[in-house]
């Protein structure tokens, strides 16, 4: 491909102390694409996102954003560059209201009108949050909290939206709702990198996928191919 990828990992390595969590991961996300990163617990999915957000340092390889090296960028600058990260475990400010959490997502923005129209957009996307906007985030159900986390990430208007297991711990009906929202966002042009253990749900809506195992990529391909892959079906889809 001769176009510059929006995001490109080249032989990325990450260590936690002496433990190697990523042993050379290469992947790319093109503008407008919906890519999913699959793998079982402990495979290194969250570490990959944390390395992209600069929450953990890369110990080898390169992370390129719009062709430029991300190595020197501190974590608080990544959103400014267009990388939004809806982290593992949601990390809401539980003692603050839903509205405060969403407004915090737009912390870097100064366009009051844009922010308020994006707030309306988020409440339209997740109507049950609208009724709860004055409630403490910690008092919401798990599914609602996940919606706040996604909406908060959207409020930063990221060029790339990275989500870490948004379906974790949700009832099947809510999983479908969340995946539906991601699919709709993608149709509106949002570039998405989705980390999931729920391979089936992710592959049904993604363009392409990568499968990570013990810090290494095992498989990659179009979502359609991966859904039909024998190896993947046996390992992750329980069939």
């Amino acid at each position, binding site marked *: 491909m001769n176009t510059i990828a929006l995001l490109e990992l080249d032989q990325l390595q990450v260590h936690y102390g002496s433990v190697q969590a990523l042993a050379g991961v290469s992947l790319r996300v093109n503008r407008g694409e919906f890519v999913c990163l699959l793998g079982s617990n402990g495979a290194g999915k969250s570490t990959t996102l944390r390395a992209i*957000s600069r*929450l953990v340092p890369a110990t080898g390889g390169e992370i390129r954003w719009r062709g430029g090296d991300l190595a020197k960028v*501190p*974590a*608080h*600058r*990544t*959103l*400014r560059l267009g990388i*939004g*990260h809806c*982290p593992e475990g949601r*990390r*809401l*400010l*539980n*003692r*603050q209201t839903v509205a*405060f959490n969403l*407004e*915090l*997502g737009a*912390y*870097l923005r100064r366009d009051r009108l844009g922010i308020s129209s994006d707030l309306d957009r988020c409440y339209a996307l997740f109507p049950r949050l609208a009724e709860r906007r004055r409630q403490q985030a910690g008092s919401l159900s798990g599914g609602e909290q996940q919606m706040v986390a996604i909406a*908060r990430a959207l409020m*930063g208007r990221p060029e790339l939206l990275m989500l870490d297991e948004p379906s974790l711990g949700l009832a099947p009906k809510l999983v479908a709702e969340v995946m539906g929202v991601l699919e709709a966002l993608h149709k509106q042009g949002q570039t998405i990198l989705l980390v999931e253990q729920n391979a089936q749900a992710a592959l049904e809506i993604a363009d392409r996928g990568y499968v990570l195992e013990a810090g290494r990529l095992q498989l990659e391909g179009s979502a359609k191919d991966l859904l039909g892959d024998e190896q993947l079906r046996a390992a992750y889809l329980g069939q």
Partner: protein
Amino acid sequence: MSAALLQILLNGAASGGVYALVALGYTLIFSVLGVINFAQGALFSLGGYLTFLLMGGRIGVNGALPGWHLPVALPFWMALLLAAIGAGVVALLVERVAFAPLRRRGADPLLSLITSLGAGVVLVNLLQILMGAEGYAFPAGAAALEGLPEALLIGGARIRTVQVVLLLISAGAVAALTVWLERSRTGQAMRAVAEDPTAARLMGIHSGAIVRLAFLLSGMLAGLGGGLIGLSVSLAGPYFGISFGLKGLAVLVLGGLGSVPGAIAGGLLMGLAEALIPSAASGWRDALAFAVLFAVLVLRPSGLLGRRLQEKV
């Protein structure tokens, strides 16, 4: 209300205001880092001495430069403001040497209790080398309060003007800080860092800068308290801030760790409780302060307005 009672209440509120300043200083740092800065008392001393020097006060015979004084003699208000800023800058330095290296290395935050205590001891000893161990009274007639009578009659009660000034300045500072934390964008960022620094960074907040801002502000609060007490009582030696630091710590726990309204309420309660003790029995004041603390904690382990203690998830 009898004039005597009013007098007691106003005096209590005045010292309570200073306790609230100190406790708020602890609160700011506790909420963003989850630790106590034990150098706070030393910064309180520093604020007092800086105010004294900026007003043109002379170093005494036991100091490093006996008889020396700054070539300026600022009015109290200005000296107090500059001293607060000075204490804030030194607080930044304390963060640099006693907190930042530990955080960089991922050390147990509890270790900073020792490093900050050490920084405080160094600071107090530097003051002692420079100024000697003797006490200092602010320049005669509290030059700054020129034009105001020594005492005011309020509702029949005779109140020292200094006490009123003390109350107004500390109340003003506390109110300004509270409103700012509640309303401003930076206050919003500070609350975010306090609750989840990682989430805050992902929202584009520079958590390191927010931590430094918390140190600057808390040093300024301590410095302000030191200057105010210097004016209303005197500087009773380089260690005088330490006892206020301890009292502030008691107030912090009394009000509820990390709670801004708790620090204010705790400060006032402590000041009022002390003021109720007649000055003939003033030796009992500290004992009472800690007895109040003890009683409150038995009844409400999380403090007056603290959140109920719970596991962080």
